């Protein structure tokens, strides 16, 4: 199960979901080499401006920062298909609020690729004035992409929504990182957005989703992905 990186980018670790190869990238995206498909989850674009509307003036730079990181991974992998796994915008009005300069950047990234907006709980509707297909879920081969993981153990699901993060304690110090949460049948992706936090994979929200014996948290390091066995993980 734990195989050291074989891809052309060193900052990855490889997993398999129902036999399909998945490259977990330290930058928080998943690459499916056989399908030339890039999956990214929980971008939460325009989160800053949503808070500003409520009276908390968070910096308006989160969209720019998130798109810049997305542009970098897209440039590296040059995917044919991109799946944004829901909560792409922080709220329904997010796409309409997005300044034109960012819209243009996003359009440039989308150009020439099949782009799927999976509906999320923050953005259940099609994003305003953007191309790409809005879908509830997307099935390709034996794999299903959807925003919220479905209850119970299920074969071949790639989901987001939960913002998985993991914590270890080593030499008396606590280290907390976003992570991919996976067993051989399911992969839950880390949140990609610049202002998005993480929920510990040992939280109740994750219980019953994974087979404990095969569970691995792929913690995102600065330039490496660290696969962590369940025994090493600590709750918050």
């Amino acid at each position: 199960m734990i195989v050291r990186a074989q891809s052309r980018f060193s900052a990855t670790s490889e997993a398999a979901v129902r036999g399909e190869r998945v490259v977990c990238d330290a930058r928080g995206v998943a690459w499916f080499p056989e399908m030339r498909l890039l999956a990214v989850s929980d971008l939460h674009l325009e989160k800053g401006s949503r808070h500003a509307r409520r009276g908390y003036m968070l910096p308006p730079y989160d969209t720019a920062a998130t798109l810049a990181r997305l542009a970098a991974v897209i440039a590296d992998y040059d995917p044919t298909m991109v799946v944004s796994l829901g909560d792409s915008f922080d709220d329904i009005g997010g796409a309409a609020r997005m300044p034109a300069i960012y819209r243009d950047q996003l359009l440039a990234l989308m150009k020439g690729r099949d782009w799927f907006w999976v509906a999320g709980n923050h953005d259940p509707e099609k994003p305003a004035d953007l191309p790409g297909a809005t879908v509830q879920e997307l099935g390709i081969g034996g794999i299903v992409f959807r925003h919220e993981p479905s209850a119970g153990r299920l074969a071949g699901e790639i989901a987001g929504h939960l913002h998985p993060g993991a914590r270890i304690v080593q030499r008396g110090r606590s280290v907390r990182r976003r992570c991919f949460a996976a067993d051989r049948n399911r992969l839950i992706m880390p949140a990609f957005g610049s202002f998005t936090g993480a929920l510990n994979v040992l939280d109740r929200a994750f219980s019953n989703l994974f087979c404990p014996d095969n569970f691995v948290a792929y913690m995102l390091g600065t330039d490496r992905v660290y696969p962590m066995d369940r025994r090493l993980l600590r709750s918050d």
Partner: protein
Amino acid sequence: MNRPIDDRALEGATLLPEAFSRWFAMRGWQPRAHQLDLLARAEAGRSVLLIAPTGAGKTLAGFMPSLVDLARRGKRKPGAAAQGVHTLYLSPLKALAVDIERNLTRPVTEMGLPISMETRTGDTPAHKRQRQKQAPPDILLTTPEQLALMLASKDAERFFADLRYVIFDELHALVTSKRGQLLSLGLARLRKFVPDLRTIGLSATVAEPDELRRWLVGQNPPGDMADKITVAGGAKPHITILETAEPLPWAGHSAQYSIPEIYDAIKDHRTTLLFVNTRSQAERVFQELWHVNADTLPIALHHGSLDVGQRRRVEKAMETNSLRAIVATSTLDLGIDWGDVDLVVHVGAPKGASRLAQRIGRSNHRMDEPSRAILVPANRFEVLECQAALDANYLGAQDTPPVGAGGLDVLAQHVMGMACAEPFFADELYAEIVSASPYARLDRETFDRIVDFVATGGYALRTYERFARIRQMKDGRWRVAHPMIAQQYRLNVGTIVEAPMLNIRLVRGKTKSALAGGYSLGKIEEYFLETLTPGDTFIFAGQVVRFAGIRENECYVTPAPGADALVPSYGGGKFPLSTYLAAEVRAMLADPSRWHRLPEQVAEWLTIQKEKSVLPSRDDLLIETFPRGNRFYMVAYPFEGRLAHQTLGMLLTRRLERGGARPLGFVATDYAIAIWGLRDMGALNRSGRLTFGELFDEDMLGDDLDAWLADSWLLKRTFRNCAVIAGLIERRHPGKEKSGRQVTVSADLIYDVLRSHDPDHILLRATRADAATGLLDVRRLGEMLSRVKGRIMHKDLPRISPLAVPVMLEIGKERVAGGAEDELLGEAADSLIDEAMGTQ
């Protein structure tokens, strides 16, 4: 400015209404000279700073002008309009306000004065607050946060229209904090309502009384000061250092060796107050005392993390003199009166001479009897520190921190509050704010940037105009854009940002499914729980408990009597050694003629140090280098306190890295810093490749500091506080945290994005300024570096010196500071691979 008023003041009869003279006579008392002096000055329209030791009748003196004025005013005629608040009393502690109300009620009742008096704190129910607005009491006792709330309401001007006096209690403690900064801005607003408002500050002795005198009055003209009345201290306290036959520890903070001797002292006195520097120390000492408590004396524990109910019970028992000893942290520092304490024991070094004076003031509240106190140093360096503190107390030297410039985050909160009260003109508000002494030097451009921040966040990218929280009206005034904004302000008011805390509950069950119910022991910092694994034991609320797990915001523990506790390792003290005491300790080291006053073991230690290495003179910096094991060590002795040493350690390791010394880590104590690496730093110095002169050059506070700071967790923690105070992110309200981690916006993430996209943002400026004076103690480090320029004394040694032993013993106990989180991840991940491959 100090007109001779004493002649008049002594003719008390002409000043005091009859009810007062009668009352004093009835109690067999004389009004004290400073009480009459203060009254005379206040009646002449002056504001006054009263500096007096505990037990000098400070409170009554402070209220005397109000009581006299109110007594003269007499009863309200039936049908006459209700008067507004006459006197506002502000204290840093809720409990103090309640305490004062109780103490003041007696003279008021006995004199039969027609005066109404009420408290208003965070605990005051809404209906009572509402009634206070309709029918204000004559005297309102409250806290800085409540004043900010009252000033942000629309009828503030009417409510305070009749205000004559504002009394600030424990002013020395208030002014050095952000609460004091917010309060100074509130006072400026009160002065706008009532230009001839008189203020009275009550304070313990401070190093720079003029700062407090300026704080009390409007700074127009700049430098204007309140009058000052100083009451000389009472009888000199009788302080000794615990004499022990036991070996004195080299390092550590537990002072375990002294427990039997402390217990004997408790037996010899009526009531003993035992002060310690940290909560974990309090827990440890309390536990140890019960181990030796053969006579089962009533001994109690009191610290800020305990459940409120438990604390109140202990306080009650204290008042009724039914305790023989109480182990306490700084929660008991401020001037609340407690029963009949006849001995103060201070475990650990007091860290500052003025803190020592304050704590000893707790015992024997009668000015003319000497207080008795015993200092218990926990290790050898603390012996030196205690002796220095003892000398300082007799010299009356003071080392209170300077008041410092007001924070921009506090200013942002105040500007928002003022907009909530009524629309403002920027010019007028600016003039009002610079009349407060902490903000007297605020330039107009910075003020305008703060207004811009309050309106739209103040970002270079101007995309939030349509969401503005305050907007300019046609006439140029700024007003709140939406009532929701005012509501938010009220929820987030105040400058105290608590470290995230979890409730700690004791349950009997052993399984995780039983994690519910139980009874509350108090609160514990989240960061401490970070490192615990279920099954770990620690001491809390005076008992050994076993960590079971966390559910929601509750930490569950089970009793673990008899188990060995893994005691929380909070390091030494929260307070760094004060500059003054540090200088005293260095002077003592340099002067063998003073060593005869030290315990023999300590004098011997210093004598051997002198033989094996050298002792630095008062203004020199000693650096020792020596090999040990397969590492090379460098130990420096700046005596500037943990915070400054930690910053120094971070900067030195960067420089050593660049210089090729291959440093591996460092530890810092209050007294010294030890750095170890793979290359001989002494040899590098000798060869001139990396001299210590260069290494300790002041220029490290330039680029190196900036580069390190940017990524430091210290700065992130400071940013979080600034962001909450300035209203950028919501305050976490205990018990109302329904949303999980994944939806709360982390201040760290905001910091990272802001730093890379808007490095000149005003809130980052506020953060850097805060960190420099707070957690990093850069100011002190800078002073030290400039002091030791050209005065570095290097000693190359074949082995560790006696003086180096204490700091070397900290290695391994302390977490080694630094980044390297990725290495830890790698280690953890690889450990399993090794296990699986059978290489372990």
